C-alpha cells in the first residue's frame, strides 16, 4: 500500500554540520499490517513516520502510495494526509475544540467536508474509541487522561485514514488504560480494515499486537520480521541499545544456562508453555 525506496534525510546542525537521520531506508506497509516500530531514542523513528504522510520530504528516494509517487508534482498531498493519519506523542495536548464533538469534526471540516458529513464521521469515530454520546457537548478538558487520548485518536480517525500511524500512544498512561488503548487499536484495525504503524519503546506491547516488527538503528531499518524472529536476536538488539522485554531476556538467559528452550519467549504465556513442557514431562531428552 505504502512503499518507500531508498529514503535519505538529514538535519542541519549548526554545531556539527549535517547529521543523517535516515540513511537509505526502504520499506513496505501492506494492507492490514500491524507494524511495531522500535528503536532507541534518536534512531530516526519519528523522522521516518513524518515521511509517511509527506510532512517531511526525503532528500533522495521515493515514496509510493498505491503505486503513485507522492513526490511527483501533480500528486495531491492533502489526499495522502487523509489516507495516512498521524497521531503524535501526547496528542491530547492538541485538543482545542470547545466541545469534544467540534474537536473531532475539525479534521474532516478542514478537508472540505460539509458540517453534516463531518458530524457523522466524528460521531462514528467517537463511538469507535468508546466515548459515549453524553460527552459530545462537554469540553475536552473535562475528560480523564485516557479519554482525552482516545478523543485525540478519534480526531484522526474521523478523516478515515487507511493507514494509522501512532507515536507512543500509551506513554504516561497507567497499565490498564494502556491495555485499553491497545485493544482499541486492534478494534480499529478489525472494523476499518486499517493498517497500523505503532511506534513504541515497549517491546512487550509490540510483541503482543504486531504481526511485523521494524527495528530502527542509526537511521536504518536494521530488522524487519515477525516478533518471534526479531526477538530471537537478543544480542544484536542489546547492541542497538534496545531494551528487550524482561521475559525475553529471562528465557534467553535460561537458554545460555543450558535449559533447552526452542527460542527466547516473547510473552509470559509463551514462556510458561515452553517451561511447562520441559519441566513437567518425565521423558528423557
Amino acid at each position, binding site marked *: 500500500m505504502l512503499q518507500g525506496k531508498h529514503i535519505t534525510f538529514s538535519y542541519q546542525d549548526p554545531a556539527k554540520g549535517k547529521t543523517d537521520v535516515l540513511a537509505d531506508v526502504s520499506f513496505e506497509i501492506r494492507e492490514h499490517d500491524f507494524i511495531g516500530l522500535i528503536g532507541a*531514542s*534518536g534512531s530516526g523513528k519519528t523522522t521516518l513516520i513524518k515521511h509517511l504522510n509527506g510532512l517531511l520530504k526525503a532528500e533522495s528516494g521515493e515514496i509510493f502510495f498505491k503505486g503513485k509517487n507522492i513526490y511527483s508534482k501533480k500528486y495531491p498531498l492533502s489526499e495522502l494526509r487523509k489516507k495516512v493519519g498521524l497521531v503524535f506523542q501526547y496528542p491530547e495536548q492538541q485538543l482545542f475544540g470547545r466541545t469534544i464533538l467540534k474537536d473531532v469534526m475539525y479534521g474532516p471540516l478542514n478537508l472540505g467536508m460539509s458540517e453534516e458529513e463531518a458530524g457523522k464521521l466524528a460521531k462514528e469515530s467517537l463511538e469507535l474509541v468508546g466515548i459515549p454520546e453524553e460527552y459530545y457537548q462537554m469540553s475536552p478538558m473535562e475528560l480523564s487522561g485516557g479519554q482525552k487520548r482516545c478523543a485525540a485518536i478519534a480526531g484522526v480517525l474521523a478523516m478515515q485514514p487507511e493507514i494509522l500511524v501512532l507515536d507512543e500512544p500509551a506513554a504516561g498512561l497507567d497499565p490498564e488504560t494502556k491495555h485499553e488503548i491497545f485493544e482499541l487499536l486492534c478494534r480499529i484495525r478489525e472494523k476499518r480494515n486499517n493498517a497500523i504503524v505503532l511506534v513504541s519503546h515497549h517491546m*512487550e506491547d509490540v510483541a503482543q499486537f504486531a504481526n511485523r516488527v521494524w527495528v530502527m538503528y542509526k537511521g536504518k531499518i536494521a530488522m524487519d520480521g515477525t516478533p518471534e524472529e526479531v526477538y530471537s536476536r537478543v544480542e544484536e538488539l542489546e547492541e542497538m*541499545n534496545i531494551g528487550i522485554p*524482561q521475559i525475553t531476556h*529471562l528465557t534467553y538467559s*535460561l537458554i545460555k544456562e543450558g535449559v533447552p528452550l526452542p527460542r527466547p519467549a516473547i510473552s509470559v504465556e509463551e514462556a510458561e508453555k515452553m517451561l511447562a513442557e520441559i519441566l513437567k514431562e518425565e521423558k528423557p*531428552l
Partner: protein
Amino acid sequence: MIKIENLVHNYTIWKDENTKSEKTVLDGISLDIPSGQFVAILGPNGSGKSTLARHLNVLLLPDEGTVWIDGKNTQAKERLYEIRSRVGMVFQNPDNQIVGTSVEEDVAFGPENKNVEPEKIRRIVEDVLRKVRLWEKRKTPPSKLSGGQKQRLATADALAGLPECLVLDEPTAMLDPSSRKEVINIVKELNQKEGMTIILITHHTDEVVDADRIILMKDGKIIGDDIPKKIFADRSLLKRAKMDIPPVVELGMRLKKQKIGLDEPVLHEQEMIRKITELYRSKCGGWKDAAR
C-alpha cells in the same frame, strides 16, 4: 521522616464563573515513612499520587489532617523554606525543571538563589554531579543531553538543595527502557549509599521490586501497604489498583499453578533464572541417575 495523619485534599472545579463543585483527591491518607526507607507509590491515573507528592514538598497544604516533615507541621508558614529544603522533588518532564545553559550552571542555580557561598556551591555541584554520574558532562548544555541524562540532571538539581528525602513523580514515564534503567539505578544508589529517603511514584511495577515498601493508591485512598513480595503476590489487589504484575512474578505464579515447584513469589530475574536452572538440572540429573 514523614508523618501524615488523615490528610484530605479537595480540588475546586469551576463549571462556569458562578457554579463550582469540589472533588476529593486525597480522602483520609495516613502514613508514616521512617528515614532511609525506599517507598514506591503505585496507582492508576487520577488516584491522587501526584497530589500526595505535592503535599510532601509543601506545594500544597492540607484541607484536613496534618503532614509533618521531620516533626514539623507543614502548615507552619514561617518554616516553609526550612521544611521545603528537606524534600527534593523530581517531576515527570525534566525540561520543566531545567533552567541553566550548562549542566553545572543548572545545578548551581538552586544554591545560588539561597545565597550559599560560591566555594560551597562549587563543592555541592561537584558532589551531586558525581552522584548522578554527570560530572564529565558538566560543561554540556542541557539541551544536548538525552532524556535519561536530563532526568539525572533534574535529580542533581533536587539534590543540590541538600534534602534528606527525594520525591520522584513518574520520573521514567517519558524515557526509553535503557534510560529508565539509568535513572532507577541512580535512585537505588542514593538510597543504599547515602541513606536518602526515597519516595518513587511510578506505573512500572518492575522498577520497584527492590523497594522496602509499596503503597497502592486508588480514588484518593491507600488500598495496600506492604513489602513487594506480599503486594505482588496479591493479584486481585493489584488489579484493583490497575497495576500489572511484573513479568517475572507473573511467570512464577503461572508455573506454580502448573505445579512446577516455585514455592514463594520470585521478584528478580536472576533469582528466577537460578531457580529454573536448578529445577531443570535436578530433573534431568534425576533421570540420568535412574537410567544408570
